[in-house]
């Protein structure tokens, strides 16, 4: 290799290092969570296969609190935009449960009641679209409402929604019974009996062991309707 060429290469590399040394050091700067793109644009960007894009977007949202050189507390996130993002992700991938896990187990952990309620409300609204798959997130939301927010009324409302709407075979008995047990815990035995009576009449609760357990919890004496005919023990 000719010597001038070698010198030129070394000089160019040295010049590159010099220019880099003159640049200011990078500063860690937290950026706000941006508003999500419209659903139509996301579907367009997905080129017809929304599932992978929904998954990558979920990872982006999940990791947003860990920005280069900065860790953003959840409390500093815009929960309105966060909710919009979670709604978008569910719209792109209705079968996936990831956004509901994030809402109920991650973003609802922030110790600010308004934000916790926002996430629980998101779970409640999303539950209606697919109760048989999304019941467990609403069940967790009911537990959070009862024990973190100390709002038994809200917990009972969530539990009633599970009892009434999540009727698929994969929904376990304890989830359908939550409302009965919450009412009993609050001392509303009569209301719990009415609810249990409704579950028995509809055939939602038919297993003899399950019925005995609930009756023992209620420790009531008033007669209850017989279980619906033809329902299989679960």
């Amino acid at each position, binding site marked *: 290799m000719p010597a001038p060429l070698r010198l030129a290469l070394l000089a160019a590399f040295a010049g590159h290092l010099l220019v880099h040394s003159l640049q200011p050091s990078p500063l860690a700067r937290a950026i706000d969570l941006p508003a999500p793109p419209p659903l*139509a644009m996301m579907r367009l960007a997905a*080129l*017809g296969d929304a599932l992978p894009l929904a998954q990558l977007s979920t990872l982006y949202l999940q990791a947003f609190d860990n920005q280069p050189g900065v860790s953003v507390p959840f409390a500093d996130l815009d929960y309105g935009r966060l909710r919009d993002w979670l709604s978008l992700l569910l719209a792109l991938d209705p079968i996936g449960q990831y956004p509901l896990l994030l809402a109920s187990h991650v973003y609802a952990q922030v110790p600010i009641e308004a934000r916790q309620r926002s996430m629980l409300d998101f779970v409640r609204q999303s539950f209606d679209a697919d109760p048989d798959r999304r019941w467990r997130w609403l069940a967790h939301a009911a537990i959070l409402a009862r024990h973190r927010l100390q709002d038994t009324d809200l917990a009972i409302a969530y539990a009633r929604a599970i009892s009434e709407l999540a009727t698929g075979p994969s929904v376990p008995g304890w989830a359908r019974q939550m409302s009965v047990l919450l009412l009993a815990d609050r001392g509303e035995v009569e209301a719990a009996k009415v609810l249990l009576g409704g579950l028995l009449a509809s055939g939602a609760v038919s297993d003899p062991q399950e019925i005995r357990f609930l009756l023992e919890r209620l420790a009531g004496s008033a007669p209850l309707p017989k279980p619906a005919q033809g329902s299989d023990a679960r």
Partner: protein
Amino acid sequence: MQAPNSTAGGRWPLQLFTIAGFTLLEAWRSRLPWLLAGSLALALAAGLFAAELAITESARFRIALIASGVRFAWVFILAVYVISSLTRELNERGFESALSLEVTRTTWVLGKLAGFISLAAVAVGSVCVMLLIALPPLAALAWSASLLFELAIVIAMAQFFTLSLASVPAAAVLSAALYVLTRSIDALVLIASGSPLLAAGPWRDLSRLGTEALSWVLPSLDRFAQTGWLVDQLPAPGMLGLQFVQCLVFVSLLTAAALVDFHRRDL
């Protein structure tokens, strides 16, 4: 100069298979299988990495991202390979040697197409074998078959643009644009027909009619090889059959158009 338009009796099937065989041999010698395998390995690594980041549904993440990555990588690689291979052969006049041996232009084009699609079939077959290890057989087979149909359409697109334009950049850009359009045509129809941003009036009607007309002409590649088939639920009954017919029709259309242009070319 045009070779005698002779089918040489019944020799054209043998000629077609010979050209297809040499196309496969050329792909092997140009190390294309290594490139396909490398892209598969990269997609596997990316999918595994992403699955490690997920705090739930990690298997779903892994499979969906690997499948999607493989699909887009192989569409890109095969399209570029078809364009570059055909352009090189046109520039080096290699096909004229074939034409001088009483191979018709039609046989040559069909032979090349068969070779490229066979190459895609071998690649998809290898992925299918891997999927069968980890997934239910029906899901793996359905997705693999649909991916092969999609790749066949992409190959026919790339061949058509190359034989018509004989320019690598133009063929590549148009193939990419047409692929993106076929994958997003349904979304465009929905946007054009339901967008509240477009005021009701002639322009909105025009955009709606235009996108609907395009959707009639183009295949809906967004319904091909859905990753949801691998992780959620199988395709609807008859979907694969419909996609096979769509592939057959569109590949025939593109090949016929390519032959029209190729037959008009002066040698």
